[in-house]
């Protein structure tokens, strides 16, 4: 395999709150090849978004701080970069799409201005050229009459349209890595598929890699090449998408997959995972999942499991396999 485009090693990001230091993610490692799509799944509070924002180095400081680890992008450690070097990478080499299209666009600037400013910044185009590029980007994300809509303000557009604008903005500088943080969660179901399809098609055109954050395993199944499953700030399982759906190893992954409705099966009730995600202030000793795990053994309650490789490219953090 070629050298990966992005390699995250042992990343740890903490938040310094009044009630103490909270590690939001710990020991997060994964790698992403060129053109590949990695899905990051997990419940709310599992650390998915913090992982994404850490890669962009957009964790608000204070209170957040990346404590240790490495983020190797194209062979260089992003954590060693100065802020001005980071700014040249953001929006240019690595772009991000956020969850809420309603609030992620500036209400007092036209969508054209918002797309054009990244183009002007990174591609050294003049105002007119940047605007033309913005129009063509709007066209490429399927916005009708882009020549006219370029002067619209975000509130004049629907949620789906705004997310298209976000995609146009993110892809305007041909990034090599696109981070999409729950890009379809806030949208109508009918629009979700369109947006995903559009995003993946444009990604293929650009040959970009995608880090797709979602809690929707259906989305993962359709789009991702690899999956990492996060729970309470840690990666629990890391596998190819087919392997993960065929042979989920971690009890948490098994639980997640069991909670998806399946029309082919005649099942009376959906499975659910009992209990809730532990508070970061009160992490259970041993495996973080053990209070909710039906298979928990003594060792799970006392010692934290490390990663175990159960197949080629399939790692799991569980004592069951140790």
């Amino acid at each position, binding site marked *: 395999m070629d050298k990966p485009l992005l390699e995250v090693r042992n990343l740890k990001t903490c938040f310094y709150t009044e009630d103490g230091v909270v590690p939001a993610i710990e020991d997060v490692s994964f790698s992403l090849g060129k053109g590949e799509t990695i899905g990051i799944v997990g419940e709310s509070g599992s650390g998915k978004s913090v992982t994404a924002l850490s890669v*962009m180095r*957009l964790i608000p400081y204070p209170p957040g701080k990346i404590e240790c680890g490495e983020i190797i992008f194209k062979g260089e450690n992003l954590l060693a970069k100065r802020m*001005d070097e*980071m*700014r*040249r*990478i*953001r*929006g*240019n080499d690595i*772009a*991000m799409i*956020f969850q*809420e299209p309603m*609030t*992620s*666009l*500036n*209400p*007092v*600037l036209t969508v054209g201005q918002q797309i054009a*400013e*990244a183009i002007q*910044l*990174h591609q050294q185009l003049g105002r007119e050229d940047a605007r033309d590029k913005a129009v063509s980007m709007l066209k490429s994300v399927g916005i009708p009459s882009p020549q006219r809509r370029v002067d619209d*303000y975000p*509130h004049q557009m629907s949620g789906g349209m705004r997310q298209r604008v*976000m995609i146009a*903005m993110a892809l305007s500088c041909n990034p090599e890595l696109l981070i999409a943080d729950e890009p379809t969660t806030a949208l109508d179901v009918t629009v979700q598929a369109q947006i995903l399809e559009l995003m993946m098609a444009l990604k293929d055109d650009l040959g970009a890699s995608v880090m797709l954050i979602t809690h929707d395993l259906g989305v993962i199944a359709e789009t991702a090449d690899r999956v990492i499953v996060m729970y309470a700030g840690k990666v629990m399982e890391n596998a190819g998408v087919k392997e993960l759906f065929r042979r989920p190893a971690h009890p948490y992954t098994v639980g997640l997959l069991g909670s998806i409705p399946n029309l082919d099966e005649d099942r009376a009730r959906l499975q659910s995972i009992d209990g809730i995600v532990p508070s970061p202030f009160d992490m259970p000793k041993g495996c973080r999942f053990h209070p909710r795990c039906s298979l928990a053994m003594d060792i799970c309650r006392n010692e934290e499991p490390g990663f175990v490789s159960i197949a080629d490219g399939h790692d799991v953090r569980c004592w069951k396999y140790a």
Partner: protein
Amino acid sequence: MLRFIGKRILWMIPLLFGVTLMVFLILHLTPGDPAALILGDAADQQTIEMLRHEMGLDRPLPVQYLDFVWKAVRGDLGTSIHSKRPVVSELRSRLPATLELACTALTLAVMIGITVGIVSAVKRYSAFDHAMMLTTLVFASMPSFWLGLILMLVFSVQLGWLPAVGRGGFVHLILPAVTLAATPAALIARLTRSSMLDVVEEDYIRTAHAKGLSEEVVIWRHALKNAMIPIITVIGIQFGGMMGGSVVIESVFAWPGVGKLMVDSILTKNYPVVQGGLLMMAVIVSLINLAVDVTYGLLDPRIRYE
């Protein structure tokens, strides 16, 4: 937009009726007789009655009020009891001084207030922020006449750098303008800080950072315009207050503006001047409010005037 402005100007008519009526009643129902004041203690009752008749003060109140309004509509605000000059020309000769003072103070307050507010917000919890929040708290709570007296003592009396009273060139303007600007500047700074802190938490600010924009561009282009809406409201209110409320400052610094004229006229019960002056202030404050409302629309495209 033009329809909105036209409608708002029409709405000013009932408003101004209300203002004139209130001013008229307050002036006429409070004790004190202008005729007696003019003639002094030595005058006998008969002379006073004659003067009252001459001035039309013996007519029924509704008649006096309608007479005032009818003349005001045609641009005649009556005659000053003391100077015998038309009130309109009295006001006109004083207005430039008030405008000069209020506009200078407003410019100062806005420039200082917004800059301090932004820097405090960007450097939240820094030494600068703490120092500025304490300073602005002091200025926001300090009575302006007291600040004026202190400044006068230090810079005019002790150091002798600046003239204490009167109107002249730029040097005369410094002390009253600084005094008048102090409280609004402090309020604008505090509001700008809190408004900016609200805005920088917004998702679109994160988006702007994710594009690789520099901190300066994010603050000035993305945050400030959004943060300005509540600030504009306060600037408008402060400007209205400066126009009318410079009464105290104008008295302290003997600044020959409308405020000083009003105080002198109230003390001598020169009610045509008081009535006319208040009417003019009401018009000016309404126009400032209209300007504020129009500015909202320029700042925020989501605000439309129907």
